[in-house]
């Protein structure tokens, strides 16, 4: 038996073994990327859309891995610690229904248009469907704006996790007291964020979308297995499942609102309006790209069916760990650090701590890579090549442009992650998802309503974005915000802001489309084929 299992807690805090394990994991990941580089053909097509060669299992792992970021592991545990058992119903169970519905209703239709007309990015599709180049220039910066909070939660989540693992435990200082005096020995969040960004950049630079797909599959398996391992070990240390839940705070086991300022439990109106948030998958650029470029429609079958189950496998353990933490950690503990602290405090084998932490980082990086890559693809195809023409650039130059844009996005994200480090990961993610969800009337109308017009599309995008931005600002740029005193009548209190931004986008699409000129017959025939 490992002697460190009997190590006093203060000595464990100083063991650097978890950091070594994490470093080995990152090395393995880079090795995998180098392997995928051997298959990289060096062409821009291969760099952007290797997903045309991805089968059902890799598609499932890619889609699930990119959807479940720090939000799923770190955020869900932290939110369950704060709000209690309702966390699962807020996002996980509704996502099982709505994500899969989007894959089925939006994904397969988009795949058919991608296959038929050769689209790679969502902007290419919207430009043709709404007969407007300008819609691309409107949509692109908005999508980037919405992706940045999504990227932020990954970078911040990684920083908080490593701080939790390497930080002081009890009276003992953290792992590196001499190196990082200001954080009492914990690895600072900004250093972790930098390393994570560099690793992700390395492997997407090496092999493009194929490397991202391989890394996603590998990392999704790692984070699912490590999540279950953490769950087993923590429950074991707490004396089994029954004993673990018995020591949890009773108020967190129900959804009735209680606690100071009603911060425990879930108000019913909030729970109801949260149902709109999972619609966000309908507009995520990286998922759009998967849909447009998947090898075959049959590839989606496994994703549609297995997605709700995969969510359950990851979220149930995390929510339970969050509930157990209410009996172990002090009330004011930062939500983002709960999972790392529970692992660090209860699982005393430093190797296992390192493995579980690597699993958390895997979840984070598996989202970052696809999004970085997708932004580069959109910028290159929808802005640069659209404006200046493909013939003006060599294949190498096209890849270079995509890489430079990705680097600039990484730098912006990194700077924001330092400024917004104290923000709740769960809440930031919900804001990002709310923004994308607000744009879903656009894609639903594009696919299912022949009468949806160019003007309606512009109005929908602008109204949804303006309303979203307004409430995002009112929330203090990323906090939980459901009290509209002074802004809206009291009857609206408790609703999620997505209700208003989604509603604005929907109403604008319908009203403006009804009163403006219809799309050309050729466009209608193109996107509403008769079988």
């Amino acid at each position: 038996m490992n002697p460190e299992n009997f190590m006093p807690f203060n000595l464990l805090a100083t063991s650097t073994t978890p950091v070594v394990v994490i470093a080995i994991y990152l090395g393995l990941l880079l090795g995998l990327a180098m392997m995928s580089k051997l298959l990289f053909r060096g062409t821009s097509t291969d760099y952007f859309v290797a997903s045309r060669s991805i089968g059902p299992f890799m598609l499932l792992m890619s889609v699930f891995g990119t959807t479940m970021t720090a939000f799923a592991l770190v955020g869900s545990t932290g939110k369950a610690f704060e709000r209690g058992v309702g966390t699962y119903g807020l996002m996980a169970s509704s996502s099982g229904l709505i994500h899969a519905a989007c894959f089925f209703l939006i994904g397969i239709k988009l795949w058919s248009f991608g296959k038929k007309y050769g689209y790679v990015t969502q902007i290419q599709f919207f430009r043709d469907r709404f007969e407007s180049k300008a819609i691309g220039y409107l949509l692109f910066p908005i999508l980037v704006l919405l992706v940045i909070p999504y990227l932020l939660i990954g970078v911040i989540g990684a920083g908080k996790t490593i701080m939790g693992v390497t930080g002081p435990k009890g009276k003992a200082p953290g792992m590196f007291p001499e190196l990082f005096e200001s954080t009492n020995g914990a690895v600072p969040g900004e250093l972790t964020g930098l390393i994570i960004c560099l690793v992700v950049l390395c492997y997407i630079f090496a092999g493009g979308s194929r490397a991202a797909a391989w890394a996603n599959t590998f990392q999704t398996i790692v984070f699912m297995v490590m999540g279950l391992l953490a769950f087993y070990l923590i429950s074991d240390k707490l004396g089994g499942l029954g004993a673990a839940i018995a020591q949890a705070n009773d108020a967190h086991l129900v959804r009735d609102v209680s606690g100071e300022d009603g911060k425990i439990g879930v108000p019913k109106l909030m729970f109801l309006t949260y149902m709109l948030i999972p619609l966000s998958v309908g507009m995520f650029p990286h998922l759009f790209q998967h849909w447009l470029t998947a090898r075959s429609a049959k590839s989606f079958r496994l994703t549609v069916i297995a997605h709700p189950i995969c969510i359950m496998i990851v979220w149930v353990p995390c929510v339970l760990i969050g509930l157990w933490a209410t009996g172990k950690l002090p009330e004011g503990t930062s939500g983002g650090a709960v999972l790392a602290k529970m692992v660090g405090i209860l699982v005393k084998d430093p190797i296992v701590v390192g493995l579980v932490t690597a699993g958390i980082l895997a979840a984070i990086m598996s989202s970052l890579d696809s999004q970085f890559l997708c932004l580069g693809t959109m910028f290159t195809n929808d802005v640069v090549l659209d404006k200046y023409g493909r013939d003006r650039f060599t294949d190498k130059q096209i890849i270079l442009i995509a890489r430079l844009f990705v680097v600039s996005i990484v730098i912006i994200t990194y700077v924001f992650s330092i400024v917004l480090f104290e923000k709740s990961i769960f809440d930031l993610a919900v804001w990002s998802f709310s923004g994308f969800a607000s744009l879903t009337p656009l894609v639903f109308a594009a696919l299912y309503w022949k009468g949806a017009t160019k003007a309606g599309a512009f109005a929908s995008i602008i109204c949804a974005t303006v309303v979203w931005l307004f409430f995002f600002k009112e929330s203090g740029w990323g906090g939980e915000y459901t009290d509209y005193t002074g802004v809206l009548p009291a009857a609206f209190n408790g609703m999620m802001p997505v209700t208003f931004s989604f509603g604005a986008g929907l109403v604008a699409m319908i009203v403006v489309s009804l009163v403006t000129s219809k799309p050309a017959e050729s466009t209608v025939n193109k996107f509403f084929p008769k079988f």
Partner: protein
Amino acid sequence: MTPKKIIIILAIALGILHHDTWNWGNSDLVLGFMPMGLFYHSCYSLAAAILWVFAIKFAWPKDLVDWAEGGDSDES
């Protein structure tokens, strides 16, 4: 009633069942470790997966897929 309509009705029913107000204050533990609210929504996730199995079996858009896969692409 066509299988497609049955699936749409089931999906709407599942959407409504998500709002389980009757479980809000229920602190019972299922199997001695799982709070009722979590147990109910875990079963909900399984029900969603089963719904999508039926959707793929009975409402798969075969015509659309055949259209996309048939012949050369019209544009590039």
